[in-house]
């Protein structure tokens, strides 16, 4: 090494020293420990999403991680030029930097989402945790065009009456005035006054064994909306000319009542026809002796949510925003949409998790749960999926599918009445994976090597002993 170089190095080292200090290192280590400990308590009280938003994914966490990297780089520079005895130290510290670099790549360019595919269905959208507001506008009620798409983080920056989130529209503006993190929604139906809404019907189906009370609300006039309760289907909307080979009741809205047609399975002709008003009861004539009661009939109806706010999340809760448009209030649930009318235009507002097209369809051909013998306790579950080029493939716990840069893992499944109806996959793309593995390997090597440098402690022990002796004498 030349003289000039070494003097330059020593100058750099001089200014570098405070950054490489062990005091700073201990401070950083303890800070990370404290911050992440708080994070785990937040997660226990709320959920993983809240912990991420409030602790792990924040400026102070990034700052401390940044400081860590600076400190690590500085301490390596401080020991430069490295010698053989530095090997363990250098490996352990470089490993951490590489690992963090990998984590950064994942954070910046990675994809981490979930995908629900019903059995026999196909999906090509991954849902991520980012939330977007999207507004579609239509002037004729038929053709919509997207007029706004914006990422929002109401969890961290909730709108309020005083500081609403304003979306300009052609006529007036949509104001988001409230955000609730954890609500349990229940549907309510109100008379819709503007004539652009469909009809609403609350009915009761009853016999000694069955008691079903449900709302049916048409999205638009003349739309068909249905309730399937197993042995029969109830439809609100126009009846078809011919029976479709099932037990069905069609109720067609008219101004002050409903015209009904009943079809029976294996029968060419309608079983029964008639007209009912609110409060009327009729017997559809099925073999199972049901009575059909019209509890409420609204020629124009709109749906809204009754919101019950909770302190903490449960698997039943979701998030909701409150919007004001044209002087009227509306709650919109996460991943739900609302239609807003003026005399000249219609706005369709959706608030939901971002959906990303993975570029190929994933079809779920079969889903299987196996149980521990003689119990309902799940032992394992697996999905038989189909993707282009590859054909059929089994994805099970711990056996993911790697395809087109994505890793598709079996995460969980959804059940309805004890039967699985859909499989839930976690879909990841991790560009930092290689660096993370490399960093991990290097750290592990370094840590294990550190074991052999036992002289360190004994040196210190001797030093401290000398000091102690000095104090005591």
């Amino acid at each position, binding site marked *: 090494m030349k003289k000039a170089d070494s003097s330059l190095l020593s100058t750099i080292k001089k200014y570098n020293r405070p950054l490489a200090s*062990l005091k700073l290192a201990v401070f950083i280590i303890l800070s990370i420990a404290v911050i992440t400990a708080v994070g785990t308590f937040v997660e226990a009280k709320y959920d993983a999403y809240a912990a991420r938003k409030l602790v792990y994914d924040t400026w102070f966490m990034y700052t401390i991680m940044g400081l860590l990297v600076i400190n690590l780089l500085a301490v390596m520079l401080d020991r430069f030029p490295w010698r053989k005895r530095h090997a363990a130290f250098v490996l352990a510290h470089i490993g951490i930097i590489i690992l963090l670099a990998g984590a950064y790549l994942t954070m910046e360019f990675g994809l981490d989402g979930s995908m629900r595919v019903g059995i026999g269905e196909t999906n090509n959208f991954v849902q991520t945790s980012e939330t977007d507001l999207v507004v579609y506008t239509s002037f004729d009620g038929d053709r919509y065009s997207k007029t706004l798409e914006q990422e929002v983080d109401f969890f961290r920056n909730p709108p309020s009456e005083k500081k609403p989130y304003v979306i300009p529209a052609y006529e007036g503006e949509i104001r988001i005035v409230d955000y609730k993190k954890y609500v349990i929604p229940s549907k309510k139906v109100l008379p819709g006054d503007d004539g652009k809404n469909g009809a609403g019907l609350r009915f009761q189906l009853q016999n000694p064994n069955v008691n079903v009370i449900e709302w049916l609300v048409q999205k638009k006039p003349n739309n068909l909306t249905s309730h399937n309760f197993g042995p029969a289907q109830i439809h609100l909307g126009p009846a078809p000319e011919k029976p479709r080979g099932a037990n069905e009741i069609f109720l067609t809205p008219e101004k002050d009542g409903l015209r009904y047609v009943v079809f029976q399975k294996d029968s060419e002709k309608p079983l029964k026809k008639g007209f009912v008003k609110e409060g009327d009861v009729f017997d559809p004539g099925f073999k199972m002796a049901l009575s059909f009661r019209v509890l409420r009939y609204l020629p124009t109806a709109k749906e809204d949510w009754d919101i019950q706010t909770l302190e903490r999340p449960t698997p*039943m809760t979701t998030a909701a925003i409150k919007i004001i448009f044209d002087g009227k209030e509306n709650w919109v649930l996460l991943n739900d949409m609302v239609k807003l009318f003026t005399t000249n235009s219609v706005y369709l507002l959706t608030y939901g998790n971002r959906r990303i097209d993975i570029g190929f369809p994933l079809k779920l051909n079969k889903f299987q749960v196996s149980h521990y013998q003689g119990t309902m306790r799940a032992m394992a579950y697996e999905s038989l999926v189909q993707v282009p080029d590859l054909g059929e493939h089994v994805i099970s*716990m711990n056996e993911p599918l790697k395809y087109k840069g994505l890793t598709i893992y079996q995460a969980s499944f959804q059940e309805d009445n004890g039967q699985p109806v859909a499989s839930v996959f*976690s879909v990841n793309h*991790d560009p930092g994976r290689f660096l993370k593995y490399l960093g991990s390997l290097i750290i*592990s090597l370094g840590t294990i090597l550190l074991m052999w440098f036992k002289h360190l402690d004994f040196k210190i022990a001797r030093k401290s*002993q000398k000091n102690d002796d000095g104090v005591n004498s």
Partner: protein
Amino acid sequence: MKNILIVAMALFMAVPAFAKDGDALKYLPVQDGGRIKPYDSFSREMLEIVYGKTKYEGRAATEIVMTWMLSPQAWQDKKIFEVRNHQVLTSMNLPKDQRYFSGEELFAGDRFNLLRQELQAKRDTKEKLNPYFQALQRLENQYFVFQEIAAGRMLKIVPPKEGDAWISVADMDATMQEKFMDFTKAFVNHIGAVAAASDTSATGKELDAKVAAFEEAAKANNPALYDHATKIKAEVHYNNFHPFRWAYIFYFLAFTVLLLVWTLKKESLMKIAWVFLGLGFVLNTYGFVLRMYIMDRAPVTNMYETVVWVAWGTVLFAAILEIIYKFRLILVAGTLVGTFGLVIADFAPAVLDPTLQPLEPVLRSNYWLTIHVMTITISYAAFFLAFGLADIGLIYYLRGEEKFQKEIRAIVSGIYRSMQIGVAFLAPGIILGGIWADYSWGRFWGWDPKETWALIALLGYLAVLHARYAGFIKNFGMVVTAVITFSLVIMAWYGVNFVLGAGLHSYGFGAGGVEYVSAFVAAHILLVIYVGIVRRGKQTTQTTN
């Protein structure tokens, strides 16, 4: 591994088939909890659920549980239901100074049904259950278990012709009913003879013959499903022999001898200490191998198993360090901690469930899981050893820092080495966990509380080691931090599952014992503060002198 297995097999095969007459019942295969287990395990577990212990008034679970089914009405006014939660006792209008209640007292009125509805409402909204509701849930379970056993629906002892759900006593066909009646008659005779303290060999033999006849008939139903003899033998042997109990007895003996070696300087006893320690260690290992053989998996998937594993690891590390440094003290600490761990595991079955349970789906079929859990928990063993050493160190500081300089230095070296070993296992263990998580659900790191607390524990020890390196922490500081930092391990190991109860590692969740663990941690922190103050006082008097 294969060799150990063979040795272990030979060991319990050498035990005569049935230790005494009337024991055949213990070996009756029962389908329960998703696996086939001996009736011995089944009845122990059931009695444990209802009564909180595996014996009732000195009588074995195998007897008690069978009589629940044979004459439930005789049990109506017996106090066999354990209720510990005060809030539950209050809302049931029961005396709080009582712990055991009869079915009559608990379930006859409307009160129980009302509380049950309350619990159901909580379950419907899927809210997390607090300790009160968990206790209520236990009560409901106790009721369920007793009712189902009494009705003959719980005991499934006949393999089905098709499928894999075994047939319960209540659903058996006429021929099997008959065989069963035979053996219950023999059973009643036998326990009658036992109660009358008369000669039981004849009734015992009779019972064994009837049980064998029943098993033969059951086997005829579906021979393929009725083939568990060796595993069942192993499990009954495991239940009876209780290898972990013998292990801590020997650890404790080793500890006592080591104390003599250390305090009375009787070096000659060292060999005896090593023998006791070795025997304890072999039995500890043997218990593991048995559990592994019975369940076909590494025994590190619940709290009980990790506590036993950590005790094993502590003794191992202590022995290795002892051989290197010959401080004696390290072995004292190691046997102390090993005994402590195994005793805790043995005496708190409500918290540390010792039963053999099948795995959750996510834990199956993966060797990364076993490797990462074993690596992380073995690091806890090293930290536990440091903690045990520090406890001894604190005593020396109380007795006089000057006088025991040599001992203290030995202790600090031991602590430092233990911490290093711990870090050398914990860091790669966490990384292996990351690899498994990446392999298993596609993310290397997700700030899940269990993994985060393992990281926090690692950071805690890294901070200590760095501070030591920089000279911020001297000998006393090492002793103090070895105690304090172990609280982080307790949090990562026990607290995440039993206090936080959050995150993806939910298969390890449990309840109970929080007050004892907190008291343990708090007592140690107070001890550290006390020793700190005493030491300060001594130092100031020294300097003023």
